[in-house]
């Protein structure tokens, strides 16, 4: 139109060309997809002798894995552990998050840090003494032990997610309810809970996903009868010489599908970037 000829200007108010972003992310996605895909293909291959694709397909490895690794039982354990850990962590963490969000008291930032610390510290560092403690308390190797141990990193996660969430709910809503005659319990039930519910559910989903994937702590504490899926997978992979790799991959696929299903459900409700932005404050 009325423009002068050459425009040696920045392309967009965004910061430049963006093709390389897609390229990089694309490469990463292809890599990760390739990794999972080859495991998946292996799990449905009857034989695979070194071509690009398996020679023939079968589902026998899944049946084998289910029998060999007692997958049904392990899955049940995993679900029980996951759900219990989630519920307990929510029960502990949500009230704590609420108090942290609403009340100001001396030492609040310190307390917040303390509550979040277990999530930031790698599990091995406190896991071994914790396991030792649990074994002395005769809880080692039991389902209860596994659940207890997984609560430690899960509850801080709840606090981390829910505190900024509560902070964002206008405190005036609660005050308005109080002036209209609602007792604190009523306020919680009729005002807070409905508003907080989506956040709580989202956090719960995320915890479930994490609880299922958490390896180290369960590994240190579980016994033969209380292994979660990921730990069973590790043991199977560890014994790779003895067990057929296809069966191990079958189990891996089961694990992956479970985790992915939960994760994708969670992602529909949350944007991870928003989470991180709130979190870093």
């Amino acid at each position, binding site marked *: 139109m009325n423009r002068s000829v050459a425009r040696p200007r920045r392309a967009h108010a*965004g910061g430049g060309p963006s093709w390389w972003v897609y390229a990089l992310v694309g490469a990463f996605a292809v890599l990760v997809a390739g990794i999972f895909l080859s495991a998946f293909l292996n799990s449905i291959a009857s034989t695979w002798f070194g071509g690009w694709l398996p020679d023939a397909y079968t589902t026998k490895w899944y049946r084998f894995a289910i029998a060999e690794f007692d997958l049904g039982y392990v899955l049940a354990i995993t679900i029980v552990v996951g759900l219990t850990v989630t519920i307990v962590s929510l029960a502990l963490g949500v009230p704590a998050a609420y108090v942290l969000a609403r009340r100001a008291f001396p030492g609040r930032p310190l307390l917040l840090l303390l509550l979040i610390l277990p999530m930031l510290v790698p599990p091995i*560092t406190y896991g071994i003494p914790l396991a030792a403690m649990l074994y002395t308390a005769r809880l080692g190797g039991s389902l209860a032990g596994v659940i207890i141990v997984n609560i430690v990193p899960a509850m801080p996660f709840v606090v981390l997610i829910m505190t900024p969430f509560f902070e964002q709910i206008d405190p005036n809503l609660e005050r308005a309810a109080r002036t209209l005659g609602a007792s604190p319990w009523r306020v919680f039930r009729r005002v807070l809970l409905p508003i907080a519910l989506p956040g709580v559910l989202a956090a719960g989903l995320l915890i479930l996903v994490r609880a299922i994937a958490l390896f180290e702590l369960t590994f240190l504490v579980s016994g033969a009868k209380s292994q979660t899926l990921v730990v069973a997978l590790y043991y199977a992979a560890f014994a790779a010489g003895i067990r057929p790799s296809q069966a191990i991959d079958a189990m891996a696929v089961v694990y992956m599908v479970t985790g992915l299903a939960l994760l994708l459900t969670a992602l529909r409700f949350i944007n991870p970037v928003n989470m991180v932005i709130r979190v870093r404050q």
Partner: protein
Amino acid sequence: MQRAVRHRTGEGAAVPAPRARRGGAVLLPLLPALLVVLMLFIYPFAYGLMLSLHPQGALAKAGAFANYAVFFGDPRERTSIWNTLRLAVPVTLLDLLIALPLAYRLRRPLPGQRVITGLLVIPMTLGTVLLAEGMIEFFGPAGWLNKLLLALHIIGTPVQFVHNYTGVFLSLMISDFPAVFLVLLGYASGIDPRLEQAARTLGAGWWQRLLRVTLPLLAPGIAAAAALSFVATFSVFPSAVLVGQPAGETRVIALAAWQAAYERFDYPQASAIAMVMAAIELVFVALVLAARNRAYQGPTIGGRG
């Protein structure tokens, strides 16, 4: 009922409504969570520390620090620190290097932003065990990567990607990258875009804006990401076993601790090793924080009335 409502400047929307008679009871809901943290986290640390200072068995008479002496004295044990550092430091640096431009570019939303972040979050949540297991196929001598490289004539014979240092390195890069990226992205998107615009109107080209405005403001984020990444990679465990060489070059410190506990049933020794691990991580985090404090002080939102 009289209520004193104090306005509080600063973080959050917390406006306290203290009622003198309630006092500490208001904090009651916090208690269970706090107890859990204290009993199941802080206490194990203290217990572990104490345990490590009470050597058992043959070392029982060798004094409180015998565990540590043994650990540092034994060359095989000692090298585990080096093995782990060899992995943690390069992975952290490389992930930062790759994630930084990516996060910088994505601070303004791009079409498909959610897909991108979703893609990156998936490997992060599925965990290292699955990744390691999958890698055995993909990176194996008969796996797709080798096949591709052979087909493109980039290599002549299959390269050994797994069951060595490379395997663990790759596994850590893949599992660590999304976390680093998300942290950096969080910080990058939190920088007020008006600041860059102001810098432009004052004559700063893109390079100067990056150097003088964006990077200093990103320093806290870079520090956080570096700390998080190092701590996570330094405590690597399952991948070191599954795609590494646990008896040799990828015998990481976490593995040393585990072996002490579960193979030799020497819990004091295991705790000692865990303490050493924690100490090294702490030192690193402290260093990073000190460096970032020198680079920048203050919030990332421009001065506002």
